[in-house]
């Protein structure tokens, strides 16, 4: 894992000292809110419905146990005892006080974490596959490149006032767990003729105009990463619209000008910009790579795992849903669900955060990951340790066996916290999870992703949910639109709206009707929801959702 050097530490300390002085100047009246607002946003401080909110970046979703413990400390000392993991590998604190924020940032700085560029029209936290460095099918660990991008984009003078925010995601696998096609720039590490490089995707995004990204370059040699990204951003900075906030994202720039024009302009800029890079970035990359050497995976018997799997049905259920194949023999990737039925998706208490840090230290080669799906991952675990890990998780309400199932819901904070929200999303997620737990149908239903956003900005990724739910304000009441057939994987697709929305008390029954329809029309238990939807289309679901309309047609 990347460890800050003296330069990183000094830079962060300086930034935090600046912010502390800015807070003081706001409090003593030297700065107006108009002057202070952009300064606080540059440091991840929002003002939400009930309180300030601090958004802390978890670069490429990777944490060591000490960093994880610092997140627990913040929750306990300056917040309400919990943190909220977001859909972009950040953690948010919902209740900080203005005077405490500089102390919180200093505490983060001590463990090499920050909140820089978690807001504003800048390059945001570069997100990565949460199985990076562990996935069996990976070409190479994408995180050194993500760290290189973090260092390049942090405080990059040309990209502090972009037309709009800019999000980059990277994966090293063909299986896309980082939703790269729904980002401003998506990078996939690929190998061509023995050379490592990137497939570059541009112009994806959700929000009010959802778009799947288009391929800008099939193969970009790895040495050209930064000059090429700089070219993409330079073109966007000039060509992107600034007259209308809703048309300012790069997806609109690409769609209005066409991918071919965008490509031509990028390549032209690249000719100049590449010459400005003297190889320092490549030296830096080599230094960064040294930090990401894989741990010495131990060998040993996995008998303890096999015995528990045979004899303990609760462990078996958890192992079946929450484990993934690791690249090293005898190892597994263990995902810890922080979606207990009825709990807030993505919320973990300080105690739970510490337990996960301890487990990573004791059993997990000192590594943790946070997924955009709002779960926590122990990426490297020897299978013989899994029964002990599971037992510890159970003690702390962290052993829910629901990964990829209907209760493993992505939900944004919605109107319970967010200033932009038009409706609530958390209670909808809580009720869906509780309902299907009561019905004991979850495992029978199988793989099904529900994603909920409380407004059109789509932080809850509803467009790419197999079932997407969008909360809106319709004439002063909460109303929920449903989309079906969205896909967040390498087969990315935007869902299709079913029809008119549903009231707050109708949305859970509506989801139940969709699921009942799926169970009735699927060809076998092996055919997943999304496969069934692709085969039968919208009609049976529409008929179940809107029986009155069906009658009129008949």
């Amino acid at each position, binding site marked *: 894992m990347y460890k800050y050097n003296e330069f990183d530490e000094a830079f962060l300390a300086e930034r935090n000292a600046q912010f502390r002085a800015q807070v003081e100047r*706001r409090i003593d009246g030297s700065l107006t809110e108009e002057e202070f607002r952009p300064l606080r946003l540059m440091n991840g401080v929002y003002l939400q419905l*009930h309180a300030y909110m601090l958004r802390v970046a978890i670069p490429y979703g990777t944490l060591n146990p000490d960093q994880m413990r610092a997140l627990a400390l913040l929750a306990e000392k300056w917040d309400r005892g919990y943190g909220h993991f977001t859909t972009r590998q950040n953690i948010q604190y919902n209740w900080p006080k*203005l005077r405490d924020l500089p102390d919180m940032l200093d505490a983060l700085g001590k463990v090499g974490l920050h909140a820089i560029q978690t807001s504003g029209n800048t390059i945001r936290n570069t997100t990565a596959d949460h199985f990076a460095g562990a996935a069996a099918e990976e070409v190479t660990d994408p995180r050194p490149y993500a760290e290189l991008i973090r260092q390049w984009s942090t405080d990059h003078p040309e990209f502090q006032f972009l037309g709009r925010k800019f999000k980059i995601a990277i994966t090293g696998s063909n299986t896309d767990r980082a939703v790269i096609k729904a980002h401003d720039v998506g990078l996939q590490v690929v190998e061509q003729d023995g050379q490592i490089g990137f497939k570059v995707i541009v112009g994806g995004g959700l929000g009010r105009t959802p778009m799947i990204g288009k391929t800008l370059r099939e193969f970009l040699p790895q040495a050209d990463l930064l000059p090429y990204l700089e070219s993409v951003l330079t073109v966007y900075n000039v060509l992107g619209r600034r007259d209308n906030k809703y048309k300012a994202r790069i997806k609109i720039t690409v769609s209005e000008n066409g991918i071919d024009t965008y490509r031509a302009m990028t390549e032209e800029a690249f000719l100049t910009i590449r010459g400005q890079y003297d190889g320092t970035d490549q030296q830096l990359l080599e230094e960064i790579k040294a930090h990401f050497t894989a741990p010495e995976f131990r060998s040993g018997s996995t008998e303890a795992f096999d015995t528990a799997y045979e004899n303990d049905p609760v462990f078996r259920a958890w192992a079946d849903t929450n484990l993934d194949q690791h690249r090293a023999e005898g190892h597994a990737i263990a995902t810890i669900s922080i979606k207990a039925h009825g709990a807030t998706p993505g919320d973990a208490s300080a105690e739970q955060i510490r337990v996960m840090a301890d487990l990573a230290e004791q059993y997990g080669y000192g590594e943790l990951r946070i997924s955009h799906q709002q779960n926590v991952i122990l990426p490297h675990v020897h299978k013989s340790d899994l029964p002990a890990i599971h037992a510890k998780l159970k003690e702390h309400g962290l052993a829910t066996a629901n990964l990829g199932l209907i209760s493993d819901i992505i939900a944004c904070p919605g109107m319970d916290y967010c200033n932009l929200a038009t409706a609530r999303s958390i209670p909808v997620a809580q009720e869906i999870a509780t309902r299907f737990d009561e019905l004991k149908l979850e495992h029978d239903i199988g793989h099904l992703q529900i994603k909920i956003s409380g407004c059109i900005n789509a932080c809850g990724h509803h467009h790419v949910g197999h079932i997407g739910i969008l909360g809106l304000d319709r004439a002063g009441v909460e109303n929920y639109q449903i989309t079906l057939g969205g896909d967040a994987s390498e087969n990315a697709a935007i869902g299709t709206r079913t029809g008119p929305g549903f009231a707050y008390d109708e949305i859970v029954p509506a989801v139940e009707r969709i699921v009942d329809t799926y169970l009735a029309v699927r060809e076998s238990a092996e055919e997943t929801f999304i496969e069934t939807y692709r085969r039968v289309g919208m009609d049976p679901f529409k008929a179940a959702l809107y029986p009155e309309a069906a009658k009129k047609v008949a």
Partner: protein
Amino acid sequence: MARAFTPKVITANDLLEGDVIYFTADDTWTRHMSEAELITDEAVAPLRLLEAEKQNIKIVGAYLADAKAGPNGPEPTHFREEFRRTGPSNYFHGKQEAQANV
């Protein structure tokens, strides 16, 4: 025809605490919507907002929010303002908790 004026309260967030506050008839701030000044005169509303904004050194983002008269003072008419005066629905945090501790 212009839409009929609906009564308003002035609300903002406290600079230090960040929590929801309301402007009272005597130019102070309260944590309770029921103690806010209910503005029923369209011509008065923007003047009262200007008065509230004079205190921008200790408040953030004052605005006029729809409200109606209730038996114990002003009440919200929109669910967003209902959440702001109550707190989130997933935890007993925010104003609901503060009121329970009175």
